């Protein structure tokens, strides 16, 4: 397992950045995930995919251990589905300032991760569902909602409302 980490590391980091919306938090999350992975290395089945194992572990660490603390520091509890992050992150590590990652920034956390796994990492719906530990239907819903948010029509609606 340890020998495979260098190859997966950049993708794990990207996964953490997209999930947390903050480079510093992603650094913390990746470090915490690596520690957990090294401690549980004997549980990894070499016949399975290391990236999925690590992504799943990072998600659990984030959701179960780190995210609530980060949200508290951000100034208040926010419903998970409403985490568009721009309201939480005001530091320079916030990836949603500026226009460089504007499309990623449009989506709430759950949709960002689904899009990253399926449209960037190339996971099937089933693999994404297994990695995220959610039903396939939920993956499909998140992807559909993300596609709508990313479409030009969403820009027009936002412009009309603003």
């Amino acid at each position, binding site marked *: 397992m340890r020998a495979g980490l260098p190859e997966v590391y950049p993708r794990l980091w990207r996964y953490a950045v997209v999930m947390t919306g903050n480079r510093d938090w992603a650094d913390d999350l990746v470090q*915490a995930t690596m520690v957990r992975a090294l401690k549980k290395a004997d549980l990894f089945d070499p016949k399975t995919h290391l990236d999925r194992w690590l992504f799943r572990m990072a998600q659990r660490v984030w959701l179960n251990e780190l995210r609530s603390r980060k949200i508290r520091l951000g100034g208040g509890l926010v419903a998970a589905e409403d985490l568009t992050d721009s309201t939480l992150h005001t530091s320079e590590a916030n990836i949603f300032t500026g226009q460089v990652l504007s499309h990623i920034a449009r989506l709430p956390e759950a949709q960002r991760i689904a899009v990253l796994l399926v449209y960037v990492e190339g996971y099937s719906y089933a693999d994404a569902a297994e990695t995220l530990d959610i039903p396939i239907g939920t993956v499909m819903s998140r992807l559909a909602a993300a596609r709508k948010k990313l479409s030009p029509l969403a820009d027009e609606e936002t412009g009309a409302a603003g």
Partner: protein
Amino acid sequence: MTHPREFSDEELTAFLDGEAEEALSTAITSALTPDLKLRLANLSTGVDAFRAEADSLLASAPPFPDLPDIDVAGPSNSRFWVGAGSGVVAAGLVASAIWLAGTFGGTSGEPWHVQVANYHDLYTPATLAKKPGATQRTEELTRLGTEIRRDLSSLPDVDRLNYCRAQPLGFAGDTLIQIAFISDQGVPFALCILQKDGEPSALKATTIRGMAAATWSDRTHRFILIGGADQPLINAAANVFSKAL
């Protein structure tokens, strides 16, 4: 007259992704009116831009760190031995391990300020290379001040100590804040504040783990400033901080 079937966004998404069952794919392909084609086009636009942004993120990923050997004995109240890794990674991974353990080693028996010293002993100049701007400093201190119920936003500047970052930690369930500095000579310093009720104590110079330190407390918080070997610098800085906080 039969009405054309309406397809949901989920169904169209599955079709676009090649995940639709054969019957659905056939139904959509057979019903490609101009409106449906427009819906499919609109659902397709934007994904490429997301993909491009994700690729740019990948290109900016940090290098793979040297992994120290981590020997963990027991469950969450583990002791951690750090092997020959870089100071930056060692500090980060040990900090993460401590974090995962739930608290800052609250079950190891050592007082909080000693465990702060253990943690700080891992720091190297590279650990604190990044120095934020004034806005980020104010924002960090304001947020963490709320966390620890002590106004940190007006933390004074101290000659020769350059602010690097502030972060939340924890000790035995109590809130612990670390404010990290680096001196002009590249020596890391830390001002740590533990929110815990107790008796006040006067400023006291000391040495912990070979590092110069100063401790003091009031009825609701305990403080330690630690780093390097320059006791006069520590004493002078602690004097300023203890009056201001």
